[in-house]
């Protein structure tokens, strides 16, 4: 590298002599930063989504790419089109790629029997079937046909549920519908907390 090249490689020189007088763009670039590419350029497609944390409802763009093992989320960013969030995300929303792709995600059904000291694995259809039997049993044990005055109650106090504020409307709809048909009334979520 000659002296003049060496001087021209200084960011401050480029800032003073070039168009980028504020030193926020080309003037500040290094060979390393010039080679950097956004994670999003490898995406095959972008899915429109909404941040799963608080209730502001910031719009997200979910960048999806693929390899031999299938499709993967590459990055999640704010969607600048949104009149609510204008593309911005808070620290939690910005970390939501880690939320959905992180190692902490469980992917197997686990079962801890009564008095057990460890988890056991259980296959999903078996777990669903065991659960259906238990639901009917708990419903029966807690069934109340009528109150003290003989007015019909037709409900069970044997089954309770908590959760919904982080779920979809469609999911809450089915939860309430199924439990109501079962006669379960203690169906609650964070809105009571």
């Amino acid at each position, binding site marked *: 590298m000659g002296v003049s090249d060496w001087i021209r490689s200084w960011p401050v020189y480029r800032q003073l002599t070039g168009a980028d007088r504020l030193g926020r763009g080309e003037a500040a670039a290094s060979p390393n930063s010039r080679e950097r590419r956004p994670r999003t350029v490898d995406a095959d497609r972008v899915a429109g989504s909404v941040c799963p*944390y608080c209730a502001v409802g910031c719009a997200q763009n979910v960048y999806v790419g693929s390899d031999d093992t299938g499709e993967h989320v590459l990055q999640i960013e704010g969607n600048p089109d949104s009149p609510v969030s204008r593309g911005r995300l808070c620290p939690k929303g910005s970390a939501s790629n880690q939320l959905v792709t992180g190692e902490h995600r*469980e992917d197997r*059904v686990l079962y801890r029997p009564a008095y057990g000291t460890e988890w056991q694995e259980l296959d999903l259809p078996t777990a669903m079937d065991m659960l259906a039997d238990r639901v009917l049993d708990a419903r029966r044990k807690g069934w109340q046909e009528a109150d003290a005055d003989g007015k019909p109650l037709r409900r069970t106090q044997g089954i309770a549920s908590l959760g919904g504020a982080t779920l979809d409307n*469609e999911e809450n709809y089915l939860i309430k519908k199924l439990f109501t048909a079962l006669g379960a009334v203690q169906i609650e979520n964070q809105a009571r907390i």
Partner: protein
Amino acid sequence: MGSNMAEAHPVGFQWVMEAKARGARVLHIDPRFTRTSALADKHVPLRAGSDIAFLGGVINHILSNDLDFREYVQAYTNAPFLVSEEFADTEDLDGLFSGYDPETGTYDTSTWQYENGLPEHSAEGDRHREQSAGEQHGSGGPKLESGTGIATDETLRHPRCVFQILKRHFSRYTPEMVERICGVSREDFLDVCRAWTSASGREHTAALVYSVGWTQHSMGAQYIRAGAIIQLLLGNIGRPGGGVLALRGHASIQGSTDIPTLYNLLPGYLPMPDARHAGKQDYVESIRGTHQKGYWHNADDYIVSLLKEYWGEAATAENDYCFGHLPRIDGDHGTYRTVMDMIDGKVFGYFLLGQNPAVGSAHGRLQRLGMANLDWLVVRDLTMIESAEFWRNAPEIETGEIAAERCRTEVFFFPAASHVEKEGTFTQTQRMLQWRDRAVEPRGDQRSELWFIYHLGRLLQRKVAGSTDDRDRPLQDLAWDYRTEGDGEFPEPSADDVLRRINGADLTTGELLDSYLQLRSDGTTAAGCWIYSGVYAGGVNRARNRTARTEQDETALEWGWAWPANRRVLYNRASADPQGRPWSERKKLVWWDAGRGEWTGHDVPDFPKNTPPGFEPEYGEAGPGALAGDDPFIMQADGKAWLFAPSGVVDGPLPTHYEPHESPMPNLLYGQQGSPARKVYARGDNPSNPAPPESGGEVFPFVFTAARLTEHHTAGGMSRQLAYLSELQPALFVEVSPQLAAERGLANLDWAHVVTSRAAVDARVMVTERMRPLRLDGRVVHQVWMPYHWGPSGKVDGDIVNDLLGVVLDPNTLIQESKVATCDIRPGRRPRGRELLEYLAEYRRRAGVTVETGTHVMTADTTASETAAPETTEPETTGRDTTAAPDTTDREEDA
């Protein structure tokens, strides 16, 4: 107030900053100096739990100085309506309203009714107490037999008109009283009053923002009532830049209230049927009065359409549309009652669907002991949360109260699909539904809740298919024929199909409905949630509307879809004057177009489209047709906004300052110390710290409050496992003022522990001037603040702050008082193991805590104060006599 918006809703807060840049003044009134305070024009600290005293002071300031927006108040609120002669105010009864029953701790609300309006007599006080009636009556408020023919005085001078009652009720909320109760100087208080009242009238509005800093109190609903009264007096409801804005804390917590997973509601704020209701007709009559105004009068259309969606072909006119298939409630079935029932062995199975009560609910120990006494527990979550592993990581393992070998609860953990692995809608905090596309498939056993519930329902239906047991009929008849995608025994159900069913269809044509106005009670329509009808208007999923903000105006009607009918500002007819003209050019939103004979504007008008401003209904008319041209509050039974609530609120028709359940202060306004209708539970596992007039409160001398950090989310299940967020906020800490640090020997970054009669919790000390000692009635009160996101799991762990709290509830909502309690704080770490239990027992012994502490809720002396003149604000005579013996009636003793 009651919100740290910059911290808890940071992206929404950009609009506050935008308003500030355009000249708005931002005031933050909150116990602690926070990120919001730092960006506000002014921060006013006040004592946690004293907000109604402050707001009452503002109301008094408005009314004493004639600063209300009189034209708005006269036309759009119930200010001119006369109230029954039998009504007696807190002024007359030492802090109680008429109708109080000290035996049950409940009100009979019949004396709070309007004159001439035929009241709904609630003779069943006991039952009322057991229900969260505010929600029971739905979003439209309670019924009135008639919405027309109420006696009024348009001059607002009649002594029994709402306006004058309001004036008298708040007359003792003086700046001096605000200073003594809240610790806010007169200068600061009057500055807030001036700023608030100046943002009123034709040209100006003010917006009021609150969050759970208001709801999580034993009188949380009344906090919001107080804020709403101010906003109505200043004409700030239904207008651009106005409103009472509730900032909710979870992605779809608004949705889970609209389409409720709540015990007392059916979709669209229809109440759950009650043991009283013999049939559907009875039920409908309990929702609406025969002659009441507005859209709740059509409740029959809404419930029949819901029943048709639930039970499909099986629901017919002959069988009352399967109304008898609905289970009945007859009291409190809320989450806290249920947890106590778990401990008492009355509940056998428990589903936790994306919720972590072992950390996130008040009184964590109660939650975990409940879980440890079940037949089975189902936990569905993204990650292994504390509630799934209480049997091996609860704090009670260390104290010996829970041991895996002795814990009988079977636990099923099902991994959940994340928000990008399923499609569906969230409803955000302004009632707007936004559809999410599925980006990728979940892996392994990860499934959506939609999958889980759909297949559980399918398996259950199969298991009871041949049953002749009558109790299986609702399940057998259930319409569970949702479209699915994919093959095999367990395909994914279609969220799109579920949303279509929620929207509703005309069963005679199969066409999707465009609006709730099309719903019918004759069985020809089916709709899962009437207020969501229209989300699929024209056969288009409007929740997926994504027209860029740059391609539409600022109302942004083409982004998402807001219920009802895509209206963005509720009750926006009030943005025009009684004649239908915008109050001013700069505050223009919706107006009457006389040429076309309809309401029009930038927003979708929230009013019958063709009802002209001057329209007057006939006496005795009912429903939407009975709304006068100046009745903007179309869900209210009389078309007006309620300054005074003649019913529907169980703890008083007007907000009244009571001290929190646990407080270092006597109530300086009345003999009645705490809310007389708050729900208390006299149980050994739910002790309370003493409050005046009980003795022993000095053992827990400090005010405790807790809240969120930006970098974590509630119980931490979605944040403590993330490296980025854990690095940003790695440890639990407690904020104390330099003065308190000096008093208790606390050093910055050293350990300290906070103690209540329930628990002791370790945290790092943060000594900061963000916490300011308050001078209250001649004494100094310190406040202590903690974030509450930690637990024993995750990349960063810590003690569970919610363990410090007990269970005492607002009687309207059955929400716990978790924003204020009393505590002690000591340097160093808390004792471990059995020693911790002994340490807490010693604290309780020193404070004289028994099962009954805090449960004697009535402390008013109704005989003594009847002679006191309402104007009496002399501190010496209104300060309560702390030597008086506590009332001995205990409504929970027999329970």
